[in-house]
C-alpha cells in the first residue's frame, strides 16, 4: 500500500531573515535526519508549507540544491514568503525554533539540461526572484556548463528588492551581469529606473544561443513576453513560472489547471511555446 501523500514532514525554523518590509526568508531543517539527508529537489520546484491549525500553501524553494549543506547544522531548505493571505500571515508570526510541516518537493522545476551551453537571461520582478535565485546560484555553482549570465531584477522600490546580500557575489561572478531597477526614481538610487519590460527594451540582450527565464507578478510576465519576442527570442527559449491557487500539489484537487495541464504537477515551469497552445484564465 502506498504512503499517505498528504502527510507532511516536520521541519524546524532555524533562521528567519527579513528581506523586505513584507517578505521573510525562512531556513528550515527537517526534524527527521534521514529525510534531511535524502530530501532532494531541482531549482524551480516547490513545497507545500503547513502552519498547523492555520493551513497549507505552496512556496518555491529559493535556495539552490547545491547549497543545502551550507546551512547551519545540516541540510535544509529556504522559502521566502510574502505576507499576503491566511497561511503567509501565520508564517510571519512564527519564530526560530517553531515547527512547521513540509510536503514535497513538487512540480517539474527548470529544464536545466536545455539551459546548458546557453546564454541565460534571468528576468525577475519582486518575489519572482525566489525561484530564479535557486537557479542562478545553481548555475553559478556549475558555472562552466553555462555561457554568459544576465540578471534583470526589478522591484517597486529599492526597499522591495529581495536577496540584496547576494548581489555582490552575482556581480563578481565570471561573465555575469546584474541589472537592478525600481519602478520610480528614488534619492541615492544609482541603478536603473523603470519597469522590467522597459529596461529589457533598453538593454537589448542577445537572443542568440539564449534562453530567457522570466518570473514575477502576472502583470510583469504579460508585458515582458512581447518584448522578448520582439528581441528575437523564440517561444521555446522563453521559460516562465506560473502561479494559481493550489491545495494538494499533486494534480488532484482540481484548482490550478491551465487548459488540461496542472500548474502543480505539469508546471510550475512552462515554456511560452507550451502556453501559446492552451486555453486558460490567469
Amino acid at each position, binding site marked *: 500500500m502506498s504512503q499517505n501523500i498528504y502527510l507532511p514532514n516536520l521541519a524546524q525554523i532555524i533562521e528567519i531573515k527579513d528581506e523586505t518590509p513584507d517578505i521573510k526568508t525562512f531556513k528550515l531543517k527537517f526534524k527527521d535526519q534521514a529525510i534531511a539527508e535524502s530530501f532532494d529537489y531541482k531549482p524551480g520546484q516547490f513545497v507545500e508549507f503547513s502552519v498547523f491549525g492555520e493551513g497549507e500553501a505552496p512556496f518555491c524553494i529559493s535556495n539552490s540544491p547545491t547549497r543545502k549543506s551550507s546551512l547551519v547544522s545540516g541540510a535544509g531548505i529556504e522559502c521566502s514568503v510574502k505576507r499576503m493571505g491566511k497561511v503567509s500571515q501565520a508564517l510571519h508570526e512564527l519564530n526560530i525554533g517553531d515547527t512547521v510541516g513540509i510536503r514535497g518537493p513538487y512540480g517539474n522545476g527548470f529544464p536545466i539540461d536545455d539551459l546548458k551551453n546557453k546564454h541565460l537571461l534571468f528576468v525577475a520582478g519582486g518575489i519572482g526572484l525566489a525561484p530564479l535565485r535557486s537557479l542562478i546560484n545553481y548555475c553559478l555553482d556549475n558555472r562552466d556548463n553555462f555561457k554568459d549570465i544576465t540578471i534583470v531584477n526589478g522591484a517597486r522600490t529599492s526597499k522591495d528588492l529581495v536577496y540584496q546580500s547576494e548581489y555582490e557575489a552575482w556581480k563578481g561572478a565570471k561573465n555575469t551581469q546584474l541589472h537592478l531597477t525600481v519602478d520610480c526614481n528614488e534619492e541615492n538610487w544609482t541603478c536603473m529606473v523603470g519597469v522590467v519590460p522597459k529596461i529589457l527594451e533598453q538593454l537589448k540582450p542577445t537572443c542568440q544561443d539564449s534562453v530567457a527565464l522570466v518570473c514575477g507578478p502576472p502583470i510583469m510576465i504579460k508585458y515582458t513576453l512581447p518584448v522578448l519576442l520582439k528581441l528575437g527570442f523564440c517561444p521555446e527559449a522563453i521559460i516562465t513560472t506560473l502561479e494559481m491557487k493550489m491545495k494538494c500539489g499533486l494534480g488532484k484537487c482540481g484548482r490550478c*489547471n491551465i487548459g488540461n495541464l496542472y500548474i502543480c504537477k505539469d508546471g510550475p515551469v512552462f515554456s511560452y511555446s507550451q502556453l501559446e497552445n492552451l*486555453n486558460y484564465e490567469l
Partner: protein
Amino acid sequence: MLKIITKEDLHKILISLLSGFEIIGPRELSHKGIFYEPITDMKSLYWGEGFATEPVKKFFLSPSEYLFKGRYDNGKEVLDDLPLTRNKRIIIGVRPCEAIGLTLLDKVFNADEYKDEFYLNNRERTILVGLSCLKPDKSCFCTSLGGSPESNRGLDVLIFLGGNEFIIEIITETAKEILKNSGRDLSQAETKAWELDRKRRKESLNYRIEVPESLDKIFESEYWEDVSRSCISCGVCTFLCPTCHCFDLVDEKRKKLRCYDGCAFCDFTLEASGVNPRLAKKERYRQRVFHKFDYFKKNFKENLCVGCGRCIRFCPVKINIAEVVDKAPLVKS
C-alpha cells in the same frame, strides 16, 4: 458467468455475508428519496427503478475525512498517520453509470506519481454489485458517453431484475468465489430470454447527445456566458456528480481534513493576493464543462461524465449539461 437466484435466496446470502462484510444498499427514505446506506435488514433494500440522490462516490471519497492528526508527546510535536479501515464491504444496487464513474476516479487517485491511499483502500475493500436499469430517467444520457443501462464495467456482479427471480452476471473472480454455491445455472431458453432482456435495456434509452471531441475552439465563445447566466453557484452539481472529485484541504486545530469542493464556488480559485482567475460564473461553468469534456479527455482519453443525470435532476435553476454540451456552437472546420 450467469446464475439465476430468487430474491429470497439473494437476501439470505447477503444476511450470511453480514458476518464478514458491511452491506450497503439503496433505501427509500420517506419524503427524502433513495439513499445508499448500511443495511442489516435486507427487506429494507430498495429494488425499484428509481435512482439514488447521492452517488456511491461518498463511500470512496467522503464529503469530509481526516487525513492525519498532530499531537504533542512530552512537548514534542508528532504527526499521526490515520489507520485505514480494512473492513470489507459490499455495495449492492449500484447503477452501471456510477461504477463507470469510479473507474474514472481511479485515473485520478491511482495516478502513477501520487496514489491516494485513502481512496485506494476504499476501492480495495469494496465489492460492487450493480443493478442494471430498465427505466432510465428523462435526464439520463449514459449511452452518449460510452455507458449503457446494462454495462458491467467496473462491477463485480450485475443484477438483472425480473419478477421474483434475478439473473446475476458474475464478473470478477472475487465474486465467483463468494457466489460459487449460490443460485442455479440458466437453461438455454432462459439465456436467450436474458439476452433479449439485455438488448431491451440497452435500447431503453433513446435520448442521445453529441459529445464533441474537443472544445478548444470555443473557449472564448459568448456561449458560456449565456448558459451560465442562471447559475446560482450552489455547487450541487459537483457534490452529486459521481465523477467530480475536486477537494479542499482544511486545517482543524491540529488535524487535516479533506472536504468536497467544487469549481462552481466563487472562492475556489481565489488567490491570497485577491486575484481570481475564475471570478465570473461563465468562467467557472466553462471550467466545469471543459474539465469534463475536454481537459480530462486530453489527459485520460475519456470524458469525465457518465451521463447519470444527477446534476440535471437536482439543479435548482434547471441548467442541463447534456443540452449545453449537445448545443455547443462548434466551429466546423
